């Protein structure tokens, strides 16, 4: 068990033809992530890493049954891309780029809520369910399958915490990067509730950061949780 992503997740990469998209697609594939295709408007029909490239998310879903999406696009294009995916029925969207305009992220969040989708980021290193899926830009060496969930806003602190959990042989269920932008697609309290429902997760490490209100809002959820949370 894990939260948000596992080996069944069928992943679509938006911006697969860009240099970051290409590089990380290869890495994610090597990890065993089930990537089924990518999009790049105007470049439909091409292939990247042996994967089909489509013009639109709709086409990609029709052909591949993708249900999860990771975005490698410049910030000004993220709003359109994310909302396209949400309307097309994608239930989980990971926004890697940083500096997404605040209004854009608020709109993305609003549409996600309407359609029952979850968004991570912007400016997130991604999410990893060790041994199954690596979605985003996290290096895989720090992670190993295990019992502890992590949630943090910082990519580098996620690696550090996972590295410590791996070395001490607790291992991780899923490691979630919320992202470093001022307005985020998901918040600590929401991710903590997902961990609470996951039977395999025996404890959660949450790493807060200066600035913002999301840490404070997590406290009421932590009080209600049965799963211990280390903050």
């Amino acid at each position: 068990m894990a939260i948000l992503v596992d080996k069944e997740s069928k992943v679509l990469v938006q911006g697969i033809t860009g240099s970051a998209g290409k590089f990380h697609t290869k890495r994610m594939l090597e990890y065993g992530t089930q990537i089924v295709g990518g999009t790049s408007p105007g470049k439909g029909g091409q292939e990247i890493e042996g994967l089909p490239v489509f013009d639109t998310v709709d086409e990609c879903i029709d052909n591949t049954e993708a249900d999860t999406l990771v975005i490698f696009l410049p910030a000004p294009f993220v709003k359109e891309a994310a909302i396209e995916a949400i309307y097309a029925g994608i239930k989980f969207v990971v926004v890697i780029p940083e500096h997404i305009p605040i209004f854009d992220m608020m709109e993305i969040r609003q549409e996600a809520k309407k359609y029952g989708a979850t968004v991570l980021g912007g400016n997130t290193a991604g999410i990893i369910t060790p041994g199954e899926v690596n979605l985003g830009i996290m290096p895989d060496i720090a992670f190993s399958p295990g019992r502890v969930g992590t949630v943090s806003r910082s990519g580098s602190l996620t690696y550090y915490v996972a590295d410590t959990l791996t070395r001490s042989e607790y291992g991780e269920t899923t490691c979630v990067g919320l992202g470093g932008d001022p307005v985020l697609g998901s918040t600590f309290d929401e991710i903590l509730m997902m961990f609470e429902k996951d039977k395999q997760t025996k404890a959660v490490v949450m790493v807060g950061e200066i600035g913002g209100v999301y840490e404070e809002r997590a406290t009421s959820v932590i009080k209600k949780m049965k799963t211990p949370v280390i903050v």
Partner: protein
Amino acid sequence: MRLFEFEAKKLFAEKKIPITEGILAASPEDVTAAVRELGGTAVLKVQILSGGRGKAGGIKKAESPDEAFTLAEELFAGTVKGYPVERVLVDPLLDIKKEYYLGVTIDRANYKLVFIASPSGGVDIEEIARISPEKIFKESFDIDEKIFGFQAYAIGKKLGFTGDLLKSAVPIIRGLYNVFKSYDCKLAEINPLIETTDGKLWAADARISVDDDALFRHPELAEMGIEKRHEEGEMTEREQQAREWGIPYLDLDGNIGMFPGGAGFGIMGNDFIEYYGGKPANFMDSGGGPSPERLAKMLILLDENPDVKAIFGARFGGISRCDDFAKGVIQFLREHGLSKPMVCRMTGNVWQEGVRLFEEAKKEDPEIFEKIEIHGIETPIEEISKRAVELAKEAE
């Protein structure tokens, strides 16, 4: 990005919010001439990127052109809240009956836009919240919502407006909301909104902060002369240099130069150094995937700082690959050299290749890399931190 009052007022005027027609002046002589033009009396307001100017002595009432000259001389000679005074807005004096507060901001926790209004304007909103929280009214909007006339009427009524005054408040309330939406603002504020004795409303001050990340879609701001800028007050020369180079950087008072990866890991690196008895000389954030040029600039900031005795490098390759990082650093060392010892750890994406590149370079140019210690994942970050503290102690 914060706007000056005179810039914010241009945006207000675009949305038909009544503003006083002030005159911008850059010298005591200009101020005096402006006061004459306004009929001999005026308010002089320093144009700085900070609120609370009144309390800090940045707003003065001039009863005559002569008095204005003396006041302006003092204002231009000094600083207000640490900012040098380069411009003064000379505004007509108003016959004030009452002052109100209007503001729009983002409620990040609830993902809403929130309109804030109070009949107790003239002091900042935190102050109103402290002394009379019952006099603050809030109305939340979804990001894609417009403000309708009836909603503006409701806000106006809460402020106590009736009759003609209520009618004239409505376009101001809608205008402020529209300014906020049109320019991707983080804050748009009229404080005070002044009701004059002749029954008119004026936006006497204007505060706007725009989302830097959305500037790309507002070329009209640059066309109006509103250029991208930084907001901080006093910065050290190095901080200014870093700012010009686009590197988030802060000087601290220690002797270990911090050459980290991202911000979170950077802060933790600083914590580690402190924990092992050292003192960081700075905080820095490389940003994602720094180019060789950027890495060079980061190292120059540290190398040219005489307080730095040793450099702590830690890279966890995420979007930034360790081989690119190694290539950038090696190129810098070959071209520029490093006058200080450095201990550096690389883990994450392609770290083995990064370490290999360094070892190869070390063989080729042993002198250049003599004081550079490179580690991979096998050395925990704690050891690197201890080593940096040792190196700094040895160098002192």
